[in-house]
Each structure stands twice: as C-alpha cells, then as structure tokens.
C-alpha cells in the first residue's frame, strides 16, 4: 500500500443529509448567476415542449448541494495542509423544481502521488444525489489534495 489508512473507510457511507427542496427560484437564481441561456432551464414554455416536459436545472446545479456539517469529521487528513482540488460530476437524471435532493457521501478512493511541488495524498469523497423517488440524479466526486 502506498499510503496508510484504514481500508474499511473506503465505500462506507458516513453521512446522509436531510432532503433539500429544489425551488424554481433556486434554479432561476443559479441560471442567472452562471449566465445560463438554454431555454430548457430558463423558459417555462420552451421547456414544456422540450425533451423533459418541464423546466430542469442546468447539470452543474448538482454541485450546489452541500454536504452536512459533520462532513470533514469523516474525511481523513494527511499532512498539515490541503485544498479543494476540484470536482468531477456524473449526471444521471435531470433535477427539477419540486424535487427534494438527498446527498449520501463516502470515501471513494485515497491515493498518493508525487509531482513538481512534492508529495501529495488525494482523498476522493463521492456524494450521491438522489431525488424523492430514490432516483440517482448525479454523483459528485470531491477531490481533496493534502500536502505531505
């Protein structure tokens, strides 16, 4: 093993949030903030005649859902400092106003690598987003880099 950690951490869901209601206003505000122009997300009439039959949130809306307040208590740290090294999002189904989204999170992967600036340990936390029907709408992989 390249880096030492408790292997039981991997894959174990450590947190599930309460449902977060999605409102039309939240979607509208998000679209406005990112300059979204796709009518499927901003024009009710156009969206009704579109493939989803109603307004949907832009795919990147998936990253606006926050993990719970105890999130970082469960994410292992290595070294003394680190930062958010980006997110990968897999979109599975549209998020719509009226949905209630639940996040459940687990540590997906831990690995070490070396680069120009030194040694690093990456911790990948995967949050799975489900709607009120239990349908997975997205997987968001949060990539945390720890400087060792």
């Amino acid at each position, binding site marked *: *093993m*390249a880096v030492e950690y408790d292997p039981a951490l991997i894959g174990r869901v450590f947190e599930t949030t309460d449902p977060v209601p999605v409102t039309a206003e939240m979607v509208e505000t998000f679209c406005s903030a990112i300059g979204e122009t796709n009518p499927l997300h901003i024009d009710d009439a156009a969206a009704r005649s579109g493939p989803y039959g109603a307004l949907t949130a832009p795919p990147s809306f998936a990253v606006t859902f926050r993990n719970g307040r105890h999130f970082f208590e469960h994410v292992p740290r290595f070294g003394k400092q680190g930062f958010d090294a980006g997110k990968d999002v897999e979109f599975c189904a549209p998020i719509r106003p009226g949905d209630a989204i639940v996040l459940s999170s687990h540590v997906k992967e831990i*690995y*070490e*690598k*070396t*680069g*120009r*600036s*030194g*040694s690093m340990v*990456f911790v990948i936390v995967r949050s799975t987003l489900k709607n009120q029907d239990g349908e997975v709408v997205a997987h968001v992989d949060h990539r945390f880099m720890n400087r060792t």
Partner: protein
Amino acid sequence: MSTILDLHSHSEASEDSRAPLEAYLNWLKLRHTERPLDGIVLTEHRQFNRDADYRALEDKFGILVLKASEVETDYGHVLVFGVTDEMTRRFDFANVRIPAQELIDEVARMGGVAIPCHPGRPNVGLCEHYEKKPPLENVVAVEVLNGGSRKGEDERSETLARSYGYGTIGGSDSHLVSLIGLCGTRFDAEVRTIDDLVCELRGGVYEPVDFRPPRKVVPHAVAVEVK
C-alpha cells in the same frame, strides 16, 4: 522502415487526465501532417491494465496503441515498457517510493526496460536526485523531450543525458487530447509490438523528435507614462 511513436501519454485511465483514447487517435489522424506518428504508448500513472484491448481502435484509426506504465520512485518518475505479471507482482506500482535501481535492474532481468522521464523536472526528475545521491546504474535512456516541460527543463535533461551517455527519447506526456503527439521518438526500425519496442529501446537506433510549434516571441511591455 522507420517508426515514430509518442512514448509517453495518459488517457482517462490516469486520475489526472480527461482524454479518451479514441479522441487521441482521432486527433492524430486529423493532424497527421503536423504530427506524423505511427503510434502512441499509454503510460498510465502507477498502474498497468493487462487486460485492456485497444485493437478495435487501432484498426479503426490505423494507429498503433501500446501499453506501458509511469511509476514513481526514489529518483523520480520512470516509464516502464514491456510490463509483465512478474513485474506487477514484484513491485507495487501504486507505491510512490519504488527503489529506482531495483526497478531498473529487475525490469531488465524480466525482459522490459525502465526509462526515467522528464529528468529536468523539479522533485520528480533525475537531475535533482543526482545532486544528492549517487547516479543510477544501467540506465539505457532518459526522456529529454517532454511535452509538459517548462522552460529550461528539457535543456537540463539533455545536459544530463550527454554527461552520462544515456540514450534519448521523447514523449508528449499528454493529459489533454490536443497535446498528444507533440513530442515523440523516431526509431530506425519498424516497431509493431511492445516486444519490438523494448528490443529497440535496449539496442536499436532512435532519437527524440519535436513537433511542437515554435513559441511565439512576446515583446516586453513598455511602460507608458500616463499624464
């Protein structure tokens, strides 16, 4: 018949690349005039996928795809060509502190070849380690052209290779589709398989080739006094 291969590239199988192999091959096919490569070698970080089979894509695009690995050692990063099950049992490729001398010697004994890459790069290149530790033995070649190099890094690599009499190779170190094939290695002989490649790297005639467009010279800004 000579062969030109990009000996260092990363597909989306590497955690820091987003480049699908098919997109690499399509890019090379479309840009064959500027980057006349016969094939590429996927050198995924700290892993080797023995079972990956790229023959369908090779046939579709007419471009050779070979598999190798980029591992991390106590002397920096090293490309391993001709990976076997015996090698992956002997070394944990995920370990970022593989003893480089053992790797070079054991890979050679097992029929492959291990080549330090981007030696001029800080921290993960041979040059910096040679300043603190004795030089490695049995190094066949080093990568002196790397598509991801910053200013001065390739020059340091070239100086090292000349000082120690190492052979020299080139590779794009591509993590993005548009960067594939920017650097490569031209072999005098035909290379069609990983065994051919190992054989040529050990005893053939080859040289790095650079397909990067010349850098644009940006004139220094001149301060203008605002009245």
